[in-house]
């Protein structure tokens, strides 16, 4: 498998989020099952800046994490047969290093550490001006796959 890029429209095949919750603009390079890298350009037009905060607009940390999680998702949903699958977050451990501001280009780099039976462990880093703004260890799942491997639930016994 070779790496490829995804523009905003192609990206929608692999990423179920839509406006106003798409936190990535462009995938510069994705190697399915291995990594995905791309970016989000932030303008003062972003819907959250007027409220977060009126006197000091900056990208909410939760949305920085979402951007990394969405990029990691792309690294998985581009695998054969997984296009359009919905992913859920299981656990994220995130650190924030600096504010992400209007006018910044948030460069998002994610790598898949493991992908097995519907669970992906991965790592993401967000950078602005070549400095780390946020980083996270993430576990996401594709429930449709995970559920195939589970014993019968107590509720269904």
């Amino acid at each position: 498998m070779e790496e490829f890029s995804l523009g905003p429209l192609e990206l929608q095949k692999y990423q179920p989020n839509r406006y106003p919750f798409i936190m990535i603009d462009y995938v510069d390079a994705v190697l399915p099952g291995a990594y995905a890298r791309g970016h989000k350009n932030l303008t003062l037009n972003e819907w959250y800046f007027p409220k977060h905060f009126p006197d000091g607009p900056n990208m909410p940390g939760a949305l920085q994490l979402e951007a990394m999680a969405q990029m990691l998702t792309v690294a998985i949903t581009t695998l054969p047969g997984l296009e359009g699958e919905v992913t859920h977050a299981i656990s994220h451990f995130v650190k924030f290093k600096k504010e992400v501001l209007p006018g910044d280009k948030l460069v998002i780099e994610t790598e898949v550490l493991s992908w097995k039976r519907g669970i992906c462990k991965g790592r993401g880093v967000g950078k602005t001006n070549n400095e780390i703004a946020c980083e996270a260890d993430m576990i996401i799942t594709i429930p449709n796959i995970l559920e195939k491997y589970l014993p019968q639930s107590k509720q269904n016994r």
Partner: protein
Amino acid sequence: MTNNEKYQDVFVNCFSVEKWQLNEKFIYESVPEWDSVGHMGMIAELEETFDIMMEMDDIIDFSSYTTGKEILSKYNIIFD
């Protein structure tokens, strides 16, 4: 370390339980930690510990501490 000790250690590590809790009543979803994600974590750790690759049907059938030993015997993991 015996296979039984290795097996117990996987459960203790994955589900944060004491060894005395590991008996026939220790089943899937009997503790909060043994949920869907915990199940996959345990399977992955068992595979690493015993250097095996479990089949899908065995992962589904692995519904209790006791059943798990029977399933692992199919992979030539012998418990004394």
